[in-house]
C-alpha cells in the first residue's frame, strides 16, 4: 500500500480544504469545476493518451449523463441517487452505439468521426423538445442525504472530489493489470497486441465506454451542482477544452488529468476576469490564449506537465514486486501430432496487386526441430510469417497446425494454438517496463477482466502472470533489465525481450524474425543455446535470419526462398553447396 500513500495524502488535503477558515466560497466553486473537468479528462487520458484514440466528442457524453438525470428527476420526480446508474447507463449505451462505429475507423478518420457525431449530438440536444431546446432544463433537484440537501458548492464538493479520487484509483488499478497492458499496447498499433491474443477492437471499445461513463458521471454531478442544464457545455468547444486539459496535464497520465484540469480551469478564470479588467476589452481571450498554448505546448512540451513535475519529485516509486512464489500458470497440454509434422505450409501464395510476394511455397516444420527460412531481401520470408500467424490472408494455399487447418484464422486464434512470434521491426511498448511488455505474452493465460482489475480482485491472477513473465525474462538472461523501460534497451536486447514475450505464450512453435540482428558474438551464442534447449524441451522453432554462421550452426533444416519461391530445402551442409542458393545470394555470375 506504500505506493498509494501519496493518493491518501492528496485525499486528506482535499478533504480539509473546505475547513480552511475564511476560504472564499468561490474557490470551492472553482475546485468543483476542476473536479468535474478532471473526470472527463481522465477518460480522455485513457482513451487518447494511453489507448491512442482521439475523441472530439467527450462533452456529448457529459450531455447524456446530465440530460438523463435532468429529465428523469424533473419530469418523473425520481431521486438523483436513483438516476446515477441510469445516467451512467445511458452514457455507456451511447458509447456502445457510437463506439461500434467509431473504433472501427482507422487513423485520422477516427477523430474526424468523433468531431462529426460530437457536433450532431450538440445540435440534437439543442433541438429536441423534451430536452428543452436551447433553454435546456432548469430546477433540477440537488443531491440529498436524508434531509441534508447539497445546495452549496461546499456541500457537493465532497461528492465531486470523492468521485474524482475513486475514479482515479479505479483507473490506475485498471491500467496496472492484464486488461490495462492490453489497452496500453493499443497505441503502438494492433499487430503486436493481436499476435498475443488481445482482441484489439474489444479493448478499444472498452476504453471508449469507460471514458464515456466517466464523462457521464461528470455530467450527472454537473446537473445537480448547477441544477440547470443547457446544450452549451456539451458542445464542440467544450470537447476541445477537455482534450486541451488532457494535453496540458500529460495525455498519458491519470493524475495529469487532475493537474491539467486545475491549470486550465484557473487559467480560464483569470483570463475571463483579469484580462478584460486590465485591457478594458470584452472578448473570449481565454479561447485565443488556449488555442495558442495548445500548439505551443505541442512544440515545446508534447508530453504535458505531469511527467515534467514528476521528474522533479525526489522519491521514486519502488519497482513492481514480483511474487516468485506465485503458483505457476497452467501449462499447455502438448500432444505431439501423430505424423510428427507440427506446421505444414502447402502451396501458400500471397499477391499484392501484381506482385507475387509468396509464390506457392510449401514446407514443413516437424516437432522438436529448428528450421531456418533464409533468402535475400524481399524473398518473402516475413510475408510467410505473416501468413502463418494470420496477420495477412493468403491468396491461395493452406496452412495447418498439428493437422488442423488454420487457413483464415485470426492472429488471436493462431496464438491460442501455441504459435508465438517476434517481429522484424521490434514491436514493444517503449514506455512500459520490460516486465510489463513480457507479461503481454501471457495475456491468454490470465483471466481477470476489466471490472475485477479495477476492484483489485485480480491480484492472484496478476501475480501468476508477472511471475511467469519474470521467469521467462530470467530464462533469456535479462533479469537485470526487468524494471527498465523497454524503449531504453539496445535494439539487440529489445529483440531478446520479444523472445521472452513469445515464450510467455508457452508455445509449441516459435516464429523468430531475425532474432540475432544487433546481437554481439557472445549474445548470439547464448541465444543459440537457448533455442537448442527450447527445441529439446519440445518447442519447434522457425526462424528468419541473415547471419549465415548462426543459421548453419543452429538449424536442423533450412528452407531457401528467392523472389517468393522456394528454391531449396535441406540440412545446412547441403544448402551450403546448392548451386541455386549460391546463385541467389551471389548473383548469376558467381
Amino acid at each position: 500500500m506504500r505506493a498509494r500513500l501519496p493518493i491518501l495524502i492528496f485525499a486528506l488535503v482535499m478533504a480539509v480544504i473546505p475547513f480552511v477558515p475564511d476560504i472564499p466560497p468561490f474557490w470551492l466553486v472553482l475546485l468543483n469545476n476542476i473536479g468535474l473537468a478532471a473526470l472527463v479528462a481522465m477518460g480522455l487520458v485513457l482513451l487518447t493518451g494511453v489507448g491512442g484514440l482521439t475523441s472530439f466528442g467527450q462533452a456529448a457524453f457529459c450531455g447524456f449523463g446530465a440530460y438523463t438525470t435532468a429529465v428523469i428527476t424533473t419530469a418523473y420526480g425520481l431521486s438523483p441517487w436513483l438516476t446515477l446508474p441510469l445516467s451512467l447507463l445511458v452514457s455507456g449505451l451511447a458509447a456502445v452505439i457510437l463506439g461500434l462505429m467509431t473504433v472501427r475507423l482507422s487513423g485520422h478518420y477516427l477523430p474526424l468521426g468523433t468531431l462529426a457525431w460530437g457536433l450532431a449530438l450538440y445540435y440534437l440536444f439543442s433541438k429536441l423538445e423534451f430536452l428543452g431546446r436551447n433553454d435546456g432544463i432548469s430546477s433540477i433537484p440537488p443531491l440529498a442525504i436524508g434531509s441534508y440537501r447539497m445546495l452549496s458548492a461546499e456541500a457537493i464538493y465532497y461528492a465531486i472530489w470523492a468521485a474524482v479520487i475513486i475514479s482515479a484509483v479505479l483507473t490506475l488499478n485498471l491500467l496496472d493489470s492484464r486488461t490495462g497492458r492490453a489497452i496500453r499496447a493499443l497505441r503502438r498499433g494492433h499487430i503486436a497486441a493481436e499476435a498475443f491474443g488481445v482482441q484489439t477492437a474489444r479493448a478499444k471499445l472498452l476504453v471508449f465506454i469507460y471514458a464515456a461513463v466517466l464523462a457521464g458521471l461528470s455530467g450527472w454531478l454537473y446537473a445537480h451542482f448547477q441544477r440547470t442544464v443547457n446544450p452549451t457545455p456539451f458542445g464542440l468547444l467544450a470537447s476541445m477544452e477537455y482534450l486541451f486539459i488532457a494535453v496540458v496535464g500529460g495525455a498519458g497520465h491519470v493524475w495529469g488529468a487532475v493537474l491539467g484540469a486545475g491549470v486550465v480551469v484557473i487559467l480560464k478564470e483569470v483570463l475571463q476576469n483579469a484580462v478584460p479588467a486590465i485591457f478594458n476589452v470584452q472578448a473570449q481571450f481565454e479561447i485565443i490564449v488556449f488555442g495558442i498554448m495548445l500548439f505551443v505546448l505541442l512544440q515545446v512540451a508534447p508530453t504535458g506537465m505531469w511527467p515534467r513535475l514528476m521528474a522533479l519529485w525526489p522519491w521514486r516509486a519502488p519497482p513492481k514486486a514480483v511474487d516468485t512464489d506465485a503458483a505457476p500458470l497452467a501449462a499447455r497440454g502438448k500432444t505431439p501430432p501423430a505424423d510428427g509434422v507440427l506446421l505444414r505450409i502447402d502451396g501458400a501464395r500471397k499477391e499484392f496487386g501484381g506482385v507475387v510476394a509468396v509464390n506457392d511455397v510449401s514446407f514443413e516444420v516437424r516437432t522438436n526441430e529448428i528450421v531456418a527460412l533464409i533468402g535475400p531481401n524481399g524473398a518473402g520470408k516475413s510475408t510467410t510469417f505473416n501468413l502463418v500467424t494470420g496477420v495477412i490472408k493468403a491468396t491461395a494455399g493452406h496452412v495447418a497446425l498439428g493437422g488442423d487447418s488454420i487457413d483464415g484464422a485470426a492472429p488471436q486464434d493462431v496464438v491460442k494454438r501455441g504459435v508465438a512470434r517476434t517481429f522484424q521491426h521490434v514491436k514493444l511498448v517503449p514506455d512500459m517496463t520490460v516486465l510489463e511488455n513480457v507479461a503481454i505474452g501471457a495475456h491468454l493465460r490470465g483471466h481477470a477482466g476489466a471490472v475485477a482489475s479495477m476492484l483489485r480482485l485480480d491480484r492472484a491472477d496478476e501475480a501468476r502472470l508477472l511471475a511467469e513473465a519474470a521467469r521467462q525474462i530470467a530464462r533469456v538472461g535479462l533479469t537485470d533489465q526487468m524494471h527498465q523501460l523497454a524503449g531504453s534497451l539496445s535494439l539487440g536486447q529489445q529483440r531478446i525481450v520479444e523472445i521472452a514475450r513469445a515464450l510467455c505464450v508457452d508455445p509449441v512453435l516459435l516464429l523468430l524474425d531475425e532474432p540475432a540482428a544487433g546481437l554481439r558474438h557472445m549474445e548470439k551464442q547464448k541465444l543459440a543455446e537457448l533455442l537448442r534447449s527450447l527445441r529439446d524441451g519440445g518447442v519447434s522453432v522457425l526462424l528468419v535470419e541473415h547471419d549465415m554462421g548462426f543459421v548453419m550452426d543452429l538449424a536442423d533444416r533450412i528452407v531457401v526462398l528467392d523472389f517468393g519461391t522456394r528454391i531449396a530445402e535441406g540440412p545446412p551442409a547441403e544448402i551450403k553447396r546448392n548451386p541455386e542458393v549460391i546463385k541467389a545470394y551471389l548473383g548469376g555470375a558467381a
Partner: protein
Amino acid sequence: MNATILLFLLQDGITNGAIYALLGLALVLVFAVTRVILIPQGEFVTYGALTYAALASGKFPDTAQLALAMGLVAFVFDLFANRHGFNLRRTARSFAVNVVLSGAVLAATLAFAGRKNPVFVDVGLALLIVACIGLYLYRIVYQPIAHASVLTLLIASVGAHLAMQGFALVFFGAEGLRGPAISDVSFSLGALMFTGQSLGVYVITAALIVGLWLFFGYTLYGRALRATAVNRLGARLVGIRTSLSGRMAFLLAAVIGGISGILIVPITTLYYDTGFIIGLKGFVVAIIGGLVSYPITAAAAIGVGIIEAFSSFYASNYKEVIVFTLILPILVLRSLAAPEVEEEQD
C-alpha cells in the same frame, strides 16, 4: 412540393455545394501535401469574408495587423531555427517574405481603407491579407512539428482554430456582416432567378477544380507537392524543399478559403464563427473523397449541398444533425475499404 420548389432547392443546394466543394478541395490539397487536417480552413473563410465586408463598408480590417504580427513571429521563428548558422541570404529572404510582404499589405490596406474602392481592390486586398495569414500560420504552427503524427498535427489544428476564431471575435465583434455583391447582373430562366453572384460561384468553383487538377496532374511542381505527401524524407532526398511545399499548400488553401468567403458573404450574413461550420461541411465532403480524390470531393459537395437544402426545407431544425450524421456511415465504409496501415511512430 411543386416543381418550382424542387428547382429552387436544387439551385440552392448546388450553390452551397459549390462552396463546400471549394473548401473540400482546399482541405484535400493541404492534407495531401502536409498531412495536416486543416480545421482552421473555416477561419480563412471568415477572415476573407469579413475583411472584404469591412473594407467594402469603409472600415479598416484588423486582420491586416494580425498578418503583420504573424509575419513578425514567423520571422523570429526563422531566426531561431537558423541560430546555429547565420546566413545572410536566408535571413534576408525570410525578412522579405515575412516582414516586408505583410508590412506592404498593411500599408496598402491603410491606404485604401475608409475609401470607396472598386470591388476588385477590396477583393484583392482581402485575399492578400488572408494569403499572408495562411502562409505564416503554416510557419508558426505546423512547420516546427511537420514530422509529427497526423494526430498531433490535428490537435495543433484545433489550437490554431481556437486562436483564430477568438481573434475573429475581437476583430469583427459578435454581430454578423454582409458584403456587397461582386456583380449586380441578374436574369431569370423560367421560375429560377440567377444572380451574377451565384454564377460567379459556379464559374470560379469549376475553374479552380480544373486548375488544381491540371496543376497536380500535369506540372512538375504539382507532382513535387504530391511527392512530399507520400514520403517527406524521400522528397527531400530528391531535392524537394518540403517546408516550401507546405507553405505553398497553405497559401493556396487560404486563398481558396478567402475566395469562398467573399463569394458567400453577399448571399448570407457571416458571423465570426460561421466559417467553422461551413468549413466542417467542407470536411464532410473531403472525407467522402477520402481526402485524396478531387472529382469525388466535388461530386460529394454537390450532393451534400442538395441534401442540406432539402433537409432545411423539410426538417429545418435537424439540418445540421442530418448533415453531420451523414458522415458516419461514410467514414465506416472508408475505413473498411482502406484498412489501417500501421504507422511507424516516433
